[in-house]
């Protein structure tokens, strides 16, 4: 028998609106025009229908699993281990000047 968890059911039942997709695109820093947003809305809705299969599972009391191996964080001595390769790294940057990465002005 399938057990529905009402709270999830409610969240999953919502379909994406144009405003939702616009908001996601903004959060993800992806420029999208109106046609692209519409196309994305249709495809994402299909994918979220697939994802909605999760709603039928009662997971009360189950601990989330974030990793395949239950490991504690590995630590190391607080010492410099990497050589300075500033020039090698800046040689492949889109725009540098005087050893600095250039971006459009942020502060007036």
């Amino acid at each position: 028998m399938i057990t529905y968890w009402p709270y999830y059911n409610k969240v999953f039942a919502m379909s994406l609106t144009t405003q939702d997709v616009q908001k996601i695109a903004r959060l993800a820093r992806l420029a999208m025009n109106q046609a692209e947003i519409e196309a994305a809305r249709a495809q994402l809705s299909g994918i979220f229908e697939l994802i909605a299969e999760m709603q039928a599972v009662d997971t009360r009391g189950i601990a989330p699993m974030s990793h395949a191996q239950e490991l504690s964080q590995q630590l190391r001595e607080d010492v410099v281990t990497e050589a300075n390769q500033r020039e090698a790294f800046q040689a492949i940057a889109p725009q540098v000047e005087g050893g600095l990465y250039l971006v459009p002005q942020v502060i007036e």
Partner: protein
Amino acid sequence: MLNLSLQQQGLALRARKISSVELTQLYLDRISTHNPVLNAYVTVDAAKSLAQAQAADVRLAVGAADPLTGIPIAQKDIFCAQGWRTTCGSKMLDNFISPYDAHVISLFNGAGAVNLGKTNMDEFAMGSSNETSYFGPVRNPWDIKAVPGGSSGGAASAVAARLCAAATGTDTGGSIRQPAALCGITGIKPTYGTVSRYGMIAFASSLDQAGPMARSAQDCALMLNVMTGHDARDSTSLQRDKEDYARDLHRPLKGLRIGLPKEFFAEGLSQDVAACVQAAVAEYQKLGATVVDISLPNAKLAVPVYYVLAPAEASSNLSRFDGVRYGYRAPDYTDLTDMYEKTRAQGFGEEVKRRIMIGTYVLSHGYYDAYYLQAQKIRRLIAQDFVEAFKQCDVIMGPTSPSTAFNLGEKGDDPVQMYLSDIYTIAVNLAGLPGMSIPCGTGANGLPVGLQIIGDYFKEAQMLGVAHQYQLATDWHSRAPQGL
């Protein structure tokens, strides 16, 4: 020479029957002939490869050779290799010349292997057909109308077409096993944490794992011997004693218990694939194995869980591509936000953008518990199913993919249909278990079928032995596509 195993090629090199330069040139010539059609390689740099071959020949001449010294290996273009263009199949990194080596690359360099070139792949490893690559689709050497699978499709195509001796791949949801199955080769994704992820461009960090793709289980064992080991630069790299993955190749199968999950033989599996897998299991029984019926009741949830967790991790990992420090930057923009948005809109392809958006949404305020946390909880249920199953059996077998290779463009614009082609492989990544695919027949269209073998944690040597014993008794793995 092209059909010799890695071990035989190594023997020929050490006996000076052929030089590494000659062997490398042989493969480079084949690449020139066949790559224009197959598109398996994104970058070939003959001068660099031949320089490595010359160095290998010096090592061979003084008797300081390792098993893979002088052998030409194709590297998936997800591995950063110093001085090599490393694109990850994306316009975003079209111009990226890596300033450093991935750990896997430095291990192969240390072993004296030759980097034969960088193989094509789905963009940022997101895809199951190689059609999402910015550099065009890879073709399946068994039928050039068909896809090679993905995301390690270039590697699978190159191994099957004998355009390299062996190759590296990576597997987040099936990206080694599914293309191995579709191209009729052998590939293994080891236990999560076995191969360092340092310098391997990240997709979903809790699932990504590198492994070998080759013509046999024996070749995969030699490759794994080089690729594995602890690396302090990957915080999830496991500290374990070095092991010889070839140690169980000759162990007889008598008494082996094979678990067959009923969920892997249910609706959705093509008849021809089911028939080949059943025939392979029958062959194993002939070789002394016994069969146990098992159940993985939550396996059906693997695809929805994966399409929450993997995009969530990807949306975070791919936030680094912003047009500031490396890679593509949009030519025109008005301010910083506009630069980010246009750079990412122009630099990423459709599938990558789709997954970033899914990930951004499931992690956003108000949805995190319902999607991300729920998916992580079901991930545990899926992993526990395997723990229960391995109380009854030594290895699990089933199909790698629900069908043989489909045609380019066949799955069209429906991402969900594409996602479902990884239905038998994804649960293994979620659990972090080792999984492999070996060829076990041909389907109704004459294309290869893969048998998936899933082992318990750290049982790679046993799995490779199980695969090798089958490959001693059958010849599916040594068949090559016609016309090449």
